[in-house]
């Protein structure tokens, strides 16, 4: 036997969960290594036994961009704020792809790992969190194409706005995680989520300025429109990378507030349902 790593046993108190303390985010920190392992597993496994492998991370947004360019840019001649339409839509497709991919992966994360949930303890939050963060790799791969597009169309971002890009990425993750927590927890009990999700994402695409500019929305609808966190994210991406639009304003803060609202309500709902996951899954 090799030497055994000694550690002082910690005492765990198991009791019926109550209140906000029940969020138990400390456990998530203790199990942080597992989060990385789960992300790593998801990435390793994602494109196994596919012909094109990680190329799919590029093919999906690029093909969508080409279709959008043809339909909206060439045929419908949708305004793209004076920016070449391909780069206009691709900039939006990046965070949108991250968001939709996260929703798809995370909503199934609990049900597809049911054997883990019914057998061992680990913070259940790890599963949707890892699914959402795992999408960042695809995002990074697809981002390379954007750089190519920017060079091709000679679009130079200004440093004054570029530094905000990570913040908008963070906002996209917060929004995706919040919605994912709701969907994954509901999915444990009602598999209807699997059937509703395609409609949800399709509908959500219509109310997000991916294929069109948010300027086409009339003034009186602007507030309602910015209730969609992804509207804030997409406008933010365009502003940070392409300098389009006026930059952060009141409507962005509406998006931010709604994102956090979804995240916190999602956390509470998830934690509330968590205690019965092993029994109902």
């Amino acid at each position, binding site marked *: *036997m*090799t*030497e*055994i*790593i000694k550690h002082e*046993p*910690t*005492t*765990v*108190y*198991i*009791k*019926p*969960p109550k209140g906000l303390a029940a969020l138990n985010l400390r456990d998530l920190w203790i*199990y942080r*290594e*597992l989060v990385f*392992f789960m992300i790593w*597993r998801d990435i*390793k*496994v994602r494109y*196994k*036994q596919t012909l094109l492998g990680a190329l799919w991370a590029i093919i999906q947004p690029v093909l969508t961009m080409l279709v959008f360019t043809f339909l909206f840019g060439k045929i419908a001649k949708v305004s793209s704020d004076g920016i070449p339409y391909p780069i206009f839509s691709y900039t939006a497709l990046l965070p949108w792809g991250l968001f939709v991919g996260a929703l798809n992966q995370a909503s199934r994360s609990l049900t597809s*790992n049911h*054997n*883990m*949930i*019914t*057998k*061992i*303890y*680990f913070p259940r939050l790890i599963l949707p969190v890892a699914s959402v963060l795992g999408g960042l790799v695809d995002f990074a791969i697809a981002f390379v194409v954007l750089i190519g597009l920017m060079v091709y169309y000679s679009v130079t971002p200004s440093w004054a706005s570029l530094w905000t890009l990570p913040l908008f990425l963070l906002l996209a993750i917060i929004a995706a995680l919040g919605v994912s927590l709701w969907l994954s927890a509901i999915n444990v*009990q009602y598999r209807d989520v699997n059937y509703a999700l395609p409609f949800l994402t399709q509908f959500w695409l219509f109310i997000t300025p991916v294929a069109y500019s948010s300027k086409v929305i009339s003034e009186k609808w602007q507030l309602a429109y910015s209730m969609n966190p992804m509207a804030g994210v997409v406008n933010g991406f365009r502003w940070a990378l392409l300098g389009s639009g006026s930059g952060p304003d009141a409507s962005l803060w509406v998006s931010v507030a709604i994102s956090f609202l979804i995240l916190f309500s999602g956390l509470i709902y998830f934690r509330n349902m*968590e*205690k*019965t996951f*092993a*029994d*109902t899954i």
Partner: protein
Amino acid sequence: MAIAISVKNLGKRYRIGAAQTKFKYGMLREVLVDVAMTPVRIYKGLTGKAVRGTSSSSSFWALKDISFDVEEGKVLGIVGRNGAGKSTLLKILSRVTEPTEGTVSVRGRVGSLLEVGTGFHPELTGRENIFMNGAILGMKNAEIESKFDEIVDFSEVSQFIDTPVKRYSSGMYLRLAFAVAAHLEPEILVVDEVLAVGDAEFQRKCLGKMGDVAQQGRTVLFVSHNMSAILRLTQEAIVLNKGQLLMRGPTQEAVDYYLSSGQAQAGERIWDVHEIPASSAPFRPISLKVKDRSGKVVDTIRSTEPVYIEFEYQLDAPITGLRIGFYLSTMRGEYVLTSFDTDDPQMFDQFDSRKSGHYISCAEIPADIFNEGRYGLGVNASSFGVRRYFMDENALAFNVDISGAPGTQWLEPRVGPVRPRLEWKIEKLV
């Protein structure tokens, strides 16, 4: 001595609502009717008028008012019939599910040999799965690295360590998975033999590992139906029945209490009306009993004495060519024997046709047949080549105690499901 586990007034309530039983049998017609009724249900749900019968969710307590402490380094046995709450208790202790009331404090990491292979991904290699599985079981990365070579040696799959585990044979897969779980070295080990799967070798390994862990002064909780294993491996035991803790004491006392209290239907199976499928008519099973020589219903039989198996049933109409069959199997699912009540040609002629009425088919299994362990008994009622009326492959289970059986002067366990008393002769030739 420090307390490793302290359980106070623990309770766990499960809801048995309509949601779980609905569509259990997945009939399309039921599904369609249910879909058609959805608006009605939603309307009634909103207005507070619950649909009669379906949405009134009843609940039951799988555990209620359980309190006990386990000192560090103790091996505690947990005995009780199926549904007594043993597995629920272990699930709460390992934090898979949360209690409805009460508290538990657990000092140290809880590991279970049941978690074997949890989180293994078929596409990942053996090496990758070791790290993945270790992390899921709560090991730190550095800890896994320090034990990596040992785990690989133990699993005996070192040449395939960089092959995806989907290409492994099931034996290799299980060995690798067990190797990781066995090296977790938790402060508290939980072993649920009732749920343990795998071959005899694997189960032997599990028990061996349990022994090692106990020797190292760690705390072990051991759940089993096998009273001899409980007696051999634990010093103290608790008895659960219907979610209540009946007693706690030295293992011998607890096991005696459990066996003698004849809890519920030990050694006996009685079919409720709703358990009998409509398709079995006109055959109606009533009860199946395992009895000893004195006619007492027993859960544990002695290998050195004959056993009587009694199947009571009702025929609501005459059946031609009916035969009642018993299937004996080990807990690992290997059949030991099959026998029918009209195997004997004379019986076959005499009972060619059975009139409607109330019957008992009873078989005597002679002494010196069974080896130590737990056996499953299945029943079957059929007319050969015509129809199978009724079948219950797992009607009941009983234990065999081998004290006094041949070869018990050696304490080693014997392999094989039978332990007959053979006529041996030893001749000295030179």
